[in-house]
């Protein structure tokens, strides 16, 4: 344990310099990281390929971690991608009635809905 702390402390020293320095350093790193840093805030819920779409975890509170829950609330893990996407869009535009999903779906862009559908369709 003490060793862990020593190592972490050493390493974290470099990770915790001022923001300005971090930005400078990021610019040095490489194109992928630099691209991520360049993307503006507010428009970046879309993950880079291979990155975790963190906002998919918004759904987990009711539908279970990674969409896996066996309860009165419908499961979404492993469902057909197109079904999930079209369901969310139907909730969003009001053509499919719901107790709550018609209100929550309106919080997401169509692009985000597509990402969610793809993510949950892949969960086994």
């Amino acid at each position, binding site marked *: 344990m003490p060793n862990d702390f020593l190592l972490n402390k050493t390493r*974290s020293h470099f990770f915790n310099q001022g923001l300005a320095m971090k930005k400078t350093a990021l610019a040095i790193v490489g194109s992928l990281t630099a691209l991520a840093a360049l993307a503006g805030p507010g428009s970046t819920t879309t993950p880079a390929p291979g990155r975790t779409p963190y906002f998919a975890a918004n759904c987990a509170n009711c539908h279970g971690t990674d969409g896996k829950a066996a309860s009165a609330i419908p499961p979404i893990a492993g469902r057909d991608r197109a079904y999930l996407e079209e369901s969310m869009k139907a909730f969003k535009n009001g053509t499919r009635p719901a107790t709550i999903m018609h209100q929550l779906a309106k919080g997401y862009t169509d692009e985000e809905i597509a990402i969610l559908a793809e993510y949950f369709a892949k969960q086994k």
Partner: protein
Amino acid sequence: MSRFNPDRRRLLHALGASTALAAAAGIPGTSLAAVASKRGKTIGHVVVVGAGFGGATAAKYLRKWSDGAIEVTLIERNKQFVSCPASNEVLGGNRAYDSLVHGYDGLRKNWGIRLVHASVTGIDADKRRVRTDTAGDFAYDRLVLAPGFDFIYGDIAGYDAKAQESILHAWKAGPQTLALRKQLEDLPAGGTYVLSIPKAPYRCPPGPYERASQIAWYFKTHKPGSKVIILDANDKVISKEKLFLGVWESDYKDIIEYRPGWNVVAVDPVARIVTSELGDKERGEVLNLLPPQRAADIARVAGVVNVNDRWADVDWISLESTAVRNIHILGDALQAAPLMPKSAHMANQHGKAAAAAIVEILSGREPQPTLMANNCYSLIDDKRAIHVDSVHRYHPEKKVPLVVDGSGGVSKEPSVEEGLYTRAWATTMWKDSLS
């Protein structure tokens, strides 16, 4: 997609970033890279203080999203988790207390989180160390503080330690939940239960109104003639107003009396009388007082309380304190964003947002804003429930999450279907946060 899997790519990023940072700092990068490779995939150590809905979720998702590359130590003084959500059902006699109680073994076994049962006594932000009473010190790269709230008892004259033995809040689930249930069971038929609500913000905005409804249901079915008197320091029902008022009118008309603008400032624990700011008095056999609230003591110790001497302000991308670097704050202790409630659901979402940001930071990337959602169900009798929900998106100019236009809302009416969802939600929340 390249032939590298995401884990591998993330690791390479982390190594690249640390080498570059070392170079920028004028320190040979090779030694750092050597350290990192010798250590395998580890990219940092995060200490999480407080294993409620926010802290436990942050700990789990830090492990999940870093694929184990971030070491997580979770410090929690209680050996067991007792859920506030659903605890009002216990007061109404609609749920067994034991169903609220959960262990932390899932976090240890499923996610490799190091659990430490101790109380945090000090935080040295410069040295990045946390001190505990019985388990020694812990160093961190990033600290996640999920302390919850403490009461400002001093705002109600007479609500001293002695009075607190018999006049309960039961606003942190646990022994007080059972004790208040016992007081209600012991109340003779025809007796009066008084519930006071502090001015917002406080934990769980619809919670007091749900509690009043649950206890009214209990009186209606078991204690004929008994009354529920709600003394609300706010000038109206602050959550699901029309729905609660509608239920009270249709189901609990002769049971619930609602008094807005009634701010309790004093209590006589012997006579069991409370007094308002304006000098009004009310008596009840069972008094259930909720004093005003603030971020819990440990937030003060950490020096992160910087709003009205009550709450902790954060950067809403990383949930890092605006007062102290490398400390991320979650849950009820926060100075909330507009229309963002202090709820278990929200604390869980804060935990995920902070975990995402920390994974990015420790991987050498800039954290990006994420979306957050909230949903609060309230059971208004033994079967039917109502909800309020919202989706919050970071606003780049205002630098705060705002409710997405047109999103969110409340139930059309109470329903058995939502009652089923309410109980499913609680079970799923416990799993998502704790296992």
